[in-house]
């Protein structure tokens, strides 16, 4: 049996994989390289994938389709629609920015160049595959393609401090999650006789005899994905992993891994189990409420800068689950993607500054004291990113993204969730503002980045500086003119 493959539909991940192989080969054949070369290869791959994505924007394409019988709709394993393309853009842009953030670590020999970029590109290719997956097996394989290279990235540092432990923790959690998802999928398969979206959705809608079995299978599938997106109570691995990993990798996990997981959850609930909304909607609602509350409360207690961002990313998963809990209609998915795009941009901005400052040995929030006064670009970029995350003007982009999430909750009839969100927005403010206040406070003498100490002061690597400026300019521009961010909603 031969299948006609629409190569355009899979061109973007293919570009990434080709770049990944090239980066690995270059590492083997070009001796004595800095981080610039593999990074350039990565960026070229990302640019090519973005170009493909742009070319696809007005069309819906599918690949790996089963030969259709007359009475049934075609079931494809790979569908590239508008929703998938938005996820692609988010993942690709984030991947490019993380690639730039990794340059100093590679140049200093802390991480091996070829492998690092190879793993990064493979993982991102997996993220694209998740967004396009249209059957449960493809989805699981794609999720694993995201995860497996990430474990290695977390533990890849040549001078491991806590990297290995972090990688192990991440690995064990993730494998358990995958096992649970597989168990759930096998139940769904057993009950419906298919793993393809169309067939599952059809039999879910028609057969009532096996409804409990399908329900349990769906819940288990979602629980497994809950591990990946780090929804409470499956968030325990996040802080330790983020702290143990190199900061750019933590940024990658918090943005690309997370959006991939959310894309997966969206696909499962929207494409496979719409008739079970009465089960997954309250389940995701409770998960959203608990996740944002626990994330914010835990973030309140942190003193370590990366841990603050780690718990804040947990809290944001809570916000991101709200539109799905509100019913997961087209407008809700648009709201989710809008928020995810905003979050990706400003969170990368925050992490890029933290990466630059961590390289000088700063770890605690108090080490950032006076950053705005000594290095205005770094300090203001971080302050602005934190205000966007908090959702308060001048971080208007964060505010309007929150408005969209609120709107989704109110329109979806889960006003109680909107009220929980209201409390959480206020809770989040406390630690974001504490961080911002530290940034603008006069720094103590002899602090980590005091002027005059050349090793610690100034010297932001150009690539990191570029990411910081780009994310700052992007978030400021979107705060003044937020319309482009909402284009996906139209």
């Amino acid at each position, binding site marked *: 049996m031969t299948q006609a493959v629409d190569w355009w539909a899979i061109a973007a991940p293919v570009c990434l994989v080709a770049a990944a192989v090239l980066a690995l080969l270059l590492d083997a054949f070009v001796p004595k390289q800095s981080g610039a070369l593999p990074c350039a290869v990565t960026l070229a791959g990302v640019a090519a994938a973005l170009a493909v994505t742009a070319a696809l924007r007005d069309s819906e394409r599918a690949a790996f389709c089963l030969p259709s019988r007359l009475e049934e709709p075609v079931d494809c394993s790979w569908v590239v629609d508008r929703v998938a393309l938005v996820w692609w853009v988010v993942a690709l842009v984030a991947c490019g920015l993380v690639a730039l953030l990794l340059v100093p670590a590679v140049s200093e020999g802390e991480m091996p160049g070829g492998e690092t970029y190879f793993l990064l590109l493979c993982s991102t290719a997996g993220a694209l595959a998740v967004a396009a997956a249209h059957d449960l097996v493809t989805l699981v394989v794609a999720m694993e393609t995201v995860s497996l290279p990430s474990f290695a990235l977390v533990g890849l540092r040549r001078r491991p401090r806590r990297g290995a432990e972090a990688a192990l923790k991440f690995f064990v959690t993730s494998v358990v999650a995958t096992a649970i998802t597989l168990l759930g999928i096998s139940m769904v398969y057993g009950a419906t006789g298919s793993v393809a979206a169309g067939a599952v959705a059809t039999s879910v809608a028609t057969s009532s005899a096996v409804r409990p079995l399908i329900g349990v299978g769906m819940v288990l599938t979602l629980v497994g994905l809950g591990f990946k997106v780090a929804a409470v109570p499956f968030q325990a691995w996040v802080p330790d992993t983020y702290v143990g990993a190199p900061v750019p990798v933590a940024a990658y996990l918090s943005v690309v891994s997370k959006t991939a997981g959310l894309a997966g959850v969206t696909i499962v609930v929207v494409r496979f189990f719409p008739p079970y909304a009465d089960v997954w909607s309250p389940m995701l609602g409770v998960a959203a409420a608990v996740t944002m509350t626990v994330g914010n409360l835990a973030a309140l207690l942190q003193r370590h800068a990366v841990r603050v961002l780690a718990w804040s990313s947990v809290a944001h998963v809570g916000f991101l689950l709200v539109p799905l809990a509100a019913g997961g209609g087209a407008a809700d998915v648009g709201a989710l993607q809008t928020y995810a795009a905003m979050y990706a941009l400003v969170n990368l901005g925050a992490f890029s500054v933290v990466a630059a400052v961590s390289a000088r040995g700063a770890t605690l929030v108090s080490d950032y004291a006076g950053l705005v006064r000594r290095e205005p670009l770094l300090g203001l970029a971080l302050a602005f990113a934190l205000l966007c995350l908090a959702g308060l003007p001048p971080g208007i982009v964060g505010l309007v993204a929150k408005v969209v999430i609120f709107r989704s909750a109110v329109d979806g009839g889960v006003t109680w969730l909107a009220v929980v969100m209201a409390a959480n927005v206020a809770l989040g403010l406390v630690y974001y503002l504490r961080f911002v*206040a530290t940034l603008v406070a006069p720094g103590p003498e002899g602090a980590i980045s005091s002027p005059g100490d050349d090793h610690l002061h100034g010297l932001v690597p150009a690539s990191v500086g570029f990411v910081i400026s780009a994310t700052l300019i992007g978030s400021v521009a979107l705060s003044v003119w937020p319309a482009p961010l909402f284009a996906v909603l139209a």
Partner: protein
Amino acid sequence: MSSLVLDALVALPALGALLAAAVPASGHRLVWFSLGLSTVVLGLSIGAWVAVVDSGPGFHFESDASWIEPIGVRWTLGLDSLSAPLVVVTALLSWCCLVSLVRRAPDCGGSRQLAALVLLIEAGSIGTFVALDLIVFFVFFELVLIPMWFVIADWGDSHDAEGRRRAATRFLVVTVVGSALVLVAFLLLRSETGSFDLTVVADRVRRIDHGRQVAIAALLLVGFGAKVPVWPLHFWLPDAHSKAPTVGSVLLAGVLLKLGTYGLLRFWYDVVPAGALEVAPYLGGLGVVGIVYGALACLAQPDLKRMVAYSSIGHMGFVALAISTMTPQGLLAANFANVAHGAITGLLFFLVGGLKDRLGGTTFDTIGRGLYGRAPRLAALFAVAAMASLGLPGLAGFWGEMLTMLAAFSPNPALPQTTYLVLMALAGLGVVLTTGYFVVAVRRICQGVGPGDSLSDVASDEWLAWAPLVLVTVGLGVAPMAMLWSADGGASLVSAVLSR
């Protein structure tokens, strides 16, 4: 009539704030620059008010532009006789604050950053008053918070770094919870009417079923009530005031609290009057509790600044009672009391700040007695402000309370009349208590025999900063029609809204 007047009122201070914060020039020059800019804004706002009065009811100077088209948010601004006086008060108080910064740099320095924050607060507050789109309103409402947080947390009480940070954060958190509830109410309105535009929402609001309207009105009450603040949501206010620097207290009392009362007036009267009628008695009750509670708390305060802060709770109680009557008279009274409270309490906080500059503290013990002898002009000004605040006829405070009592005497026919009579009587009791504590305060501070030191009396820059507020206080007291007449258009607008 489309114009850029309102855009300029918002944009000038905002751009000025950016320049003052970013331009590498001497701090002093930038404070002067900020002052000049705010003078322009003040002139413009007065001109706009006069024009609004001339052209009668409805929104004027409307400005409409695309902003976030995909979610239906448009940049629509407009000014009517409800918002115009508040814009002027905001511009005036910001101007006074900047004048006070020109000569007197704060202890910890950074006067130009403080000037930038004052301008930013001015921009956000004016924006809130003139916004006609619910989301634009919300964005401006929130824009004020971060600058205010910094003003309190960084320029506040220099003896208590932890305390001022805590007070600032508490203020911020309570307000943000409130404003998030307001956002939920806005989104409920949008999901029912399909628009974020204030006038469109008001037109279509009858489509919303009654229970929903009540829920929206209740959400607005809690959300704006946290800002006003309505008892029992007032707990953040005394600490915020006592830790804030003088300009922070002036803007907090004179401008930020008005955002809450303005929000209630605008959205209860113009948008969900039917729902508000069901909730209004609760607001009236809480307002009266606030009046009595504020007065009793004032009697027990050993600190003058905290006393003025608690007196604000009482005054805001009057405004709340006026709002809760749901009549054109109530709207008039609320708006008058808003403006009067802005001028009087702004002046009181300036005077308390002046005392703090001279004596290093604001407790009655630190200030000592016999101010009439030690600094006669300062003492006289304090006495005038205190008399205005307690509602002495002939000064602005009297009319706010008087009109409120009148409005409470004949509330909207749909409201329980007897309840309002009781509320009015209790508010009268509050007036008596208020008189009590202000008279006691004037006695303790101004009269008697002082410690014998001589204080520097009111300096020329202080005259400049305080004189406009004294003029407004006396002017509105002697000729309240100046404002009532201008608000008349607003009242007719509201009665039209209420009668449908």
